[in-house]
């Protein structure tokens, strides 16, 4: 039960973050877009500040709760490299990831984002299913 409540409250904070960025700066809180523009040297100050905040967030969680959030990253290194390349390449090609299309796009009822979210959910579920067959 607790897992559902923390998930929901964590989600509220993520939504609040997206609302703040749009209402104050007029920008989509899409992490792949922000990281991609940072790599191109566009909007570097706000982009670097957002990503610095993203890294400070879990530190604040540690200060408030007394424990680091759980991170179990068991994938072997070839999978980490391949997965990273796919996530980076695909999020740029598809113009967004879980945050931009998921949190902001769905909230704006963007048809492109609905199509993107449906596509990456199906692809991710299929990938986990196939990997389970071989493990």
């Amino acid at each position, binding site marked *: 039960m607790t897992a559902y409540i923390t998930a929901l409250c964590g989600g509220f904070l993520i939504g609040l973050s*997206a609302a703040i960025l749009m209402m104050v700066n007029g920008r989509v809180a899409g992490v792949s877009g922000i990281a991609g523009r940072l*790599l191109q040297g566009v909007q570097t100050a706000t982009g670097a500040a957002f990503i610095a905040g993203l890294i400070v*967030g*879990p530190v604040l969680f540690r200060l408030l709760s007394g424990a680091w959030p759980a991170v179990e*990253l068991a994938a072997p290194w070839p999978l980490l490299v391949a997965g990273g390349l796919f996530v980076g390449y695909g999020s740029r090609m*598809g113009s967004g990831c879980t945050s931009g299309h998921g949190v902001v796009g769905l909230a704006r009822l963007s*048809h492109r984002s609905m199509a993107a979210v449906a596509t990456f959910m199906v692809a991710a579920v299929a990938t986990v299913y196939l990997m389970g067959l071989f493990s």
Partner: protein
Amino acid sequence: MNRIERLRVVAAFVSGIVFGLGLALSGMLNPVRVQGFLDITRDWDPSLGFVLAGAVSVSALGMALVRRMREPLLDSRFHLPETRVIDRRLLVGSAIFGVGWGMVGLCPGPALASLSLGLPATVLFIASMLAGMAAHDRLFGARPWQRAS
């Protein structure tokens, strides 16, 4: 950098902190749980569905307020994607992204936020992710709205 630009940097930092705190609280930083959420045919852990539900509902409230605002507090206009077409690049790119997300259980937000824990595996994933982004933009160029001012 003028005063408005400095305030925008502060707003981006605050927004990032709230995002990272939300990710830490929600359980999204844990790739094993993300994969458990995606594993719908075996031992499905539906809890992370509540992250997206919670995030989209608060975000939707924000976007409803945005529709009543003429401009954001610190800029002269809202910077929104202008394209409406569901094209092949959107679908193929999203499918590639989904495969990578399923393989490791990390997407860009949680990957960057979990840098705070300093795990070497996270660093390797992020280096590969940034290489993938750079490779795409080098080969095809960013689309106009991805570059936008």
